[in-house]
């Protein structure tokens, strides 16, 4: 297995495993007699851990030269976390599992991105992140199907044993990656020259990185609560078949991501990052406005194609733009953590904001507000985000 193939499979299995830590936790704990208050507490603990560990975890990954070992330990931490849920979901075990899982997610994502930098090199990086997004999306889909069936036919608890079991095959693709030469540079550099590390504070004041962080924060603010709001609206308009329509609303964008992500990566290399960013961002105001006026379930599902386009663009562009800006600074993972932190803030605020507006003014106004935020994000990309593609100017012999 070549390192590239190994990375494909790694993304697939990680997508697979991560599904197990999603919505199944709330259902599982409910069946174990947990109150909604305690479940909310446990999930908030996970969210808060993820928020505060994004940046430190990024710095940690920067400091460890062997990214494959970071992936190995992150996946093993997932196994422990899943087993803690499965074996005895007492509060302490669940809290520990949430913290372990949230922290490992913050080290795993950047580490995979850093391995991608090493494997692909600067010229092919867009394509590589495109493949990552494709396989992660396929993994998500397979994971959701497997675990959904497991929860339905076996038990909610079995989902977590399955999740723990699925961490084992995820270790196999690490074998071809273990021999990778990280060039002795303790960072995810795609430039093999051992550049001196910049002071991280200077990087986090970098105008392009800050602008990008604000852009993706605004995008997430407008995007994160959109699908839950669609689900909420559908339960009222469609009734009995709502779950079927909601399932289609989730699966269709996944398919779109799996199909178009590599092309999006190629487009970002050929035509530049700004164009692809604008393409992804502009789907958000359009989608919000369409949801505000359209209630026909078939059309609602079709509108979700826009969600898939946006998800593919963001999935490829977030690591790609970050590597453009910080790839050679020695602080790539720290910067990626910083962007992740910005997106986390956006997602958290999105849910509360949409809930408040939706309760007070109804669904159409809530969708329109999300569309307005999306428009602001798009305008910001248009007006302030510089083109970060540098590969054309880089000498080719670096490969």
């Amino acid at each position, binding site marked *: 297995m070549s390192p590239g193939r190994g990375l494909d499979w790694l993304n697939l299995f990680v997508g697979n495993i991560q599904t197990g830590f999603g919505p199944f936790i709330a259902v599982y704990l*409910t*069946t*174990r007699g947990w109150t*909604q208050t305690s479940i909310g507490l446990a999930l908030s603990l996970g969210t808060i851990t993820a928020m505060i560990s994004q940046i430190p975890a990024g710095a940690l990954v920067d400091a460890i030269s062997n990214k494959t070992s970071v992936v190995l330990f992150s996946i093993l931490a997932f196994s422990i976390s899943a087993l803690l849920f499965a074996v005895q979901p007492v509060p302490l075990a669940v809290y520990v599992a949430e913290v372990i899982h949230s922290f490992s997610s913050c080290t795993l994502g950047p580490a995979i991105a850093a391995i991608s930098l090493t494997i692909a090199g600067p010229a092919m990086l867009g394509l590589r992140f495109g493949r990552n997004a494709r396989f992660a999306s396929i993994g998500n889909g397979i994971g959701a199907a497997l675990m959904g069936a497991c929860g339905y036919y076996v038990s909610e608890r079995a989902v977590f044993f399955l999740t723990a079991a699925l961490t084992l095959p995820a270790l196999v693709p690490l074998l071809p990656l273990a021999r990778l030469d990280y060039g002795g540079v303790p960072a995810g550099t795609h430039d093999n020259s051992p550049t001196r590390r910049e002071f991280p504070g200077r990087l986090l004041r970098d105008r392009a990185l800050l602008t990008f962080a604000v852009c993706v924060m605004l995008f997430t603010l407008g995007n994160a609560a959109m699908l839950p709001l669609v689900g909420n609206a559908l*339960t009222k308009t469609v009734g009995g078949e709502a779950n079927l329509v909601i399932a289609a609303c989730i699966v269709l964008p996944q398919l779109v991501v799996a199909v178009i992500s590599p092309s999006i990566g190629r487009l970002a290399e050929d035509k530049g990052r700004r164009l692809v960013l604008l393409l992804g961002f502009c789907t958000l105001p359009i989608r919000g406005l369409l949801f505000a006026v359209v209630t026909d379930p078939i059309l609602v599902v079709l509108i979700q194609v826009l969600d898939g386009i946006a998800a593919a663009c963001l999935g490829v562009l977030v690591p790609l733009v970050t590597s453009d800006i910080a790839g050679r600074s020695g602080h790539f993972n720290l910067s990626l953590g910083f962007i992740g932190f910005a997106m986390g803030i956006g997602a958290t605020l999105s849910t509360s904001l949409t809930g408040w507006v939706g*309760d007070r003014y109804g669904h159409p106004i809530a969708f329109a507000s999300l569309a307005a935020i999306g428009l602001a994000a798009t305008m910001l990309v248009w007006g302030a985000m510089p083109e970060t593609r540098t590969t054309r100017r880089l000498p080719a012999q670096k490969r």
Partner: protein
Amino acid sequence: MGFASRTRGYALGVGATASLLMIAPGVSLAATGARETPTVLLTQGDTPTPAGAPPSSTTPKAGPPAPKNLEPLAPDESTGVLGKKVVGPDGKDLGLVVDVIVATDGHPSAAVIDFGGFLGVGSRKIAVDWRLLRFAPGRPDWQVLLTLGRAEIQAAPEYKPDAATREMVGPPWEAPPSTAVHE
């Protein structure tokens, strides 16, 4: 068969909730609005009501001397209801019991049921009158039967614990079930 003896099943249900309220202060939170973490509830696992065990063993507030008026809570006749599966008259899964609303007299007035959604999206809670539920504890995988049609469930307003006005789906107009047990 489990739901055949309806009045008996109902009486058992009340007993089950009473026991639940004793060992789980968190259940009444929705009604009182108190902010307290119901940690006691969390340790119950598969057997929410300890078989035959006196409630004092799980109630931290109980002092050292065991109360003299102990009564058995037979596991085949009573159990907790939080997290139990709810099925419709057609036997299909509807959702999970996530909360119990009690009135000032201490009797349960409504159950809050979470209708799952897909992967957590589109999940929706509604409150239904306690008298619409039928219970048959004793079997390892017993479920709560909700005697309500799909149309009525879909038409029900979403239950929000913090909302200013909260509504529950009451019993059907034409044939209200006997309320004798509440007296």
